[in-house]
């Protein structure tokens, strides 16, 4: 009806990416609970769909949401191919698509209707490549999962490392489904770099870290660095003390010291059985905020184009820190933090110790 404002939230709720979906769903619901569902005279309705992270299903669901449910905004997108596939629907139907998780740089270029509230891997990797040479890390081996985001991470990290006078001795890509990292890690060990840069999707991070320690690589003087996926907040605590001291760069940590974040974490944990919100959750939370704010401005008038216009350029304080949606690229611009795993109140956290402000997606610089 005219008086509802529908958000079609398509996420992987089952399968290997399920945690992404769960975190975002929980955050989106939390946002709605905190901010009510009557905005600008419209009743906001959230329609959640499971795409099992199969891109053609994502696309079909988006199409159905647009055609049958007449949603005003599409949102979610757990993995890159899903987002890319759905971009065409956004363009065709002039519906804004708020990407809350997928992190490959090129997504925002796939359609003028895409707005991103998560992060891009180049963003996170480049910051780390700026930090490393300054801290005695000159020779690095990269190890990434062999798929879009991994290759992005490898590429931008390498470029910036070289630019900063560092050295990449070897770039290893591991298959996505890879039960044992032993051969890769042994190779790294034999290469004896100063540090190993890792990007693997969150589940595999723990395995890499464990096998890294088991192989005694820390003792051999090799540091483990990576993007924040490796020390994903919602698993970090179970990783044990071995994780202490690992340095990562990311846009969000549960331990981010700000009032906004404290409130967010508390509310989230309360609503979700003490589950820690991770970077996925914050992407969903902020995504909802972007949609809400745009709705407040437009009051539902003017359709998708007006909404989109109202989303562009939003600046606000997110639990992750200050962020804004670049009006030109529609991509998120945010601080990237350097963090180290430390123990606080008997729990492991990514404690931020340095920040690189207002990082734009370096993928858009060309």
């Amino acid at each position, binding site marked *: 009806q005219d008086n509802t404002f529908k958000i079609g939230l398509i996420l992987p709720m089952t399968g290997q990416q399920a945690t992404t979906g769960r975190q975002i769903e929980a955050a989106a619901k939390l946002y709605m609970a905190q901010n009510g569902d009557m905005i600008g005279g419209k009743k906001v309705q959230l329609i959640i769909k499971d795409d099992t992270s199969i891109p053609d299903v994502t696309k079909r669901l988006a199409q159905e949401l647009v055609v049958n449910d007449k949603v005003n905004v599409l949102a979610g997108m757990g993995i890159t191919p899903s987002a890319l596939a759905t971009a065409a629907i956004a363009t065709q139907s002039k519906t804004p698509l708020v990407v809350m998780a997928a992190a490959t740089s090129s997504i925002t270029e796939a359609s003028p209707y895409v707005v991103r509230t998560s992060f891009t891997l180049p963003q996170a990797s480049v910051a780390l490549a700026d930090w490393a040479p300054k801290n005695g890390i000159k020779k690095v081996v990269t190890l990434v999962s062999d798929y879009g985001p991994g290759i992005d991470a490898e590429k931008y990290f390498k470029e910036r490392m070289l630019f900063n006078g560092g050295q990449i001795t070897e770039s290893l890509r591991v298959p996505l489904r890879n039960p*044992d990292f032993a051969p890769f890690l042994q190779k790294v060990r034999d290469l004896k770099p100063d540090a190993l840069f890792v990007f693997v999707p969150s589940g595999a991070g*723990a395995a890499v870290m464990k096998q890294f320690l*088991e192989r005694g690589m820390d003792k051999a003087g090799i540091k483990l660095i990576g993007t924040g996926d490796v020390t994903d907040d919602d698993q970090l605590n179970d990783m044990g003390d071995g994780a202490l001291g690992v340095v990562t760069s990311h846009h969000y940590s549960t331990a981010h010291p700000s009032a906004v974040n404290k409130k967010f974490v508390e509310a989230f944990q309360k609503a979700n059985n003490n589950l820690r919100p991770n970077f996925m959750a914050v992407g969903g939370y902020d995504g909802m905020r972007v949609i809400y704010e745009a709705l407040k401005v437009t009051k539902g008038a003017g359709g998708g184009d007006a909404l989109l216009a109202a989303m562009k350029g939003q600046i606000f304080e997110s639990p992750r820190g200050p962020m804004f949606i670049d009006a030109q690229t529609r991509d998120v611009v945010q601080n990237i933090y350097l963090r180290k795993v430390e123990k606080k109140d008997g729990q492991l956290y990514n404690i931020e110790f340095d920040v690189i402000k207002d990082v734009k997606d370096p993928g858009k610089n060309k």
Partner: protein
Amino acid sequence: MLTLLFDGIAYGMLLFILAVGLAVTMGLMNFINLAHGAFAMVGGYITVLLMQRLDVPFLLCLPAAFIGAALLGAVLERTLYRPLYHKPHLDQVLFSIGLTFMAVAAVDYFVGSTQQILQLPEWLKGRTELGEGAWMLGMGHYRLFIIAVCAALTIALQYILTKTRFGSRLRASVDDQRVAAGLGINVNVVFLSTFAVGSGLAGLGGALGADVLGMDPTFPLKFMIYFLIVVAVGGTSSITGPLLAALLLGIADVAGKYYIPKLGAFIVYSLMILILVWRPQGLFVRKGGKA
């Protein structure tokens, strides 16, 4: 490159431990039990939860995982599996996949979808290094442990299956249930105990593999392919077949990924295809006659 060989063996043994239960139910009982991974997951979660929530020592968790999965297997065998022995293999596939789906969703519901991480006791975390340079042999203690458990299991199973009457009664029941029963073999008991052992082994495999592979609700689906590869390449008529196959695959995979990392996933699959096209019955099959 002894370290690499060691890692390959350990990885192979891990694959074997995960697949051996399947070799029992699928190879010996001729039941296509794709829910094997679900039993492994049960064992894995028993271990992880006992350790996390109740601080039970790791060594106690292993038998608990075996028994827990075996009991579950026994109950399911009596209630659900039994009517399916005569059904076509495809129905068994459908059924066991259905069961796996249910297990995945149930674990997700009760424990949550995040990956559970297991903390090994200190004495298993270390590493021993011998020698120098190219001949250095680095052995993770946990990997050593896996190898030891696996060797013990193989010997025990091999003994039961070939040296005891139970083994031949089992195979007789599988070959022709109707006639076996008609000749006085209590097929139900034979199947029940075998299935329980197979499930128990899966559970043990899950418990031992949890540290390396991680435990999350999609475990049974994620690693199904690996179980199947081991059993297919090893042939289904013995225990040593899958063992050798697992070792071969483990070593080839580790060495391949070390020396030619670019080929990554191709190695195992290509090796498997070559072997199977060359020896369609599996690499190590039981041959009769006085050969």
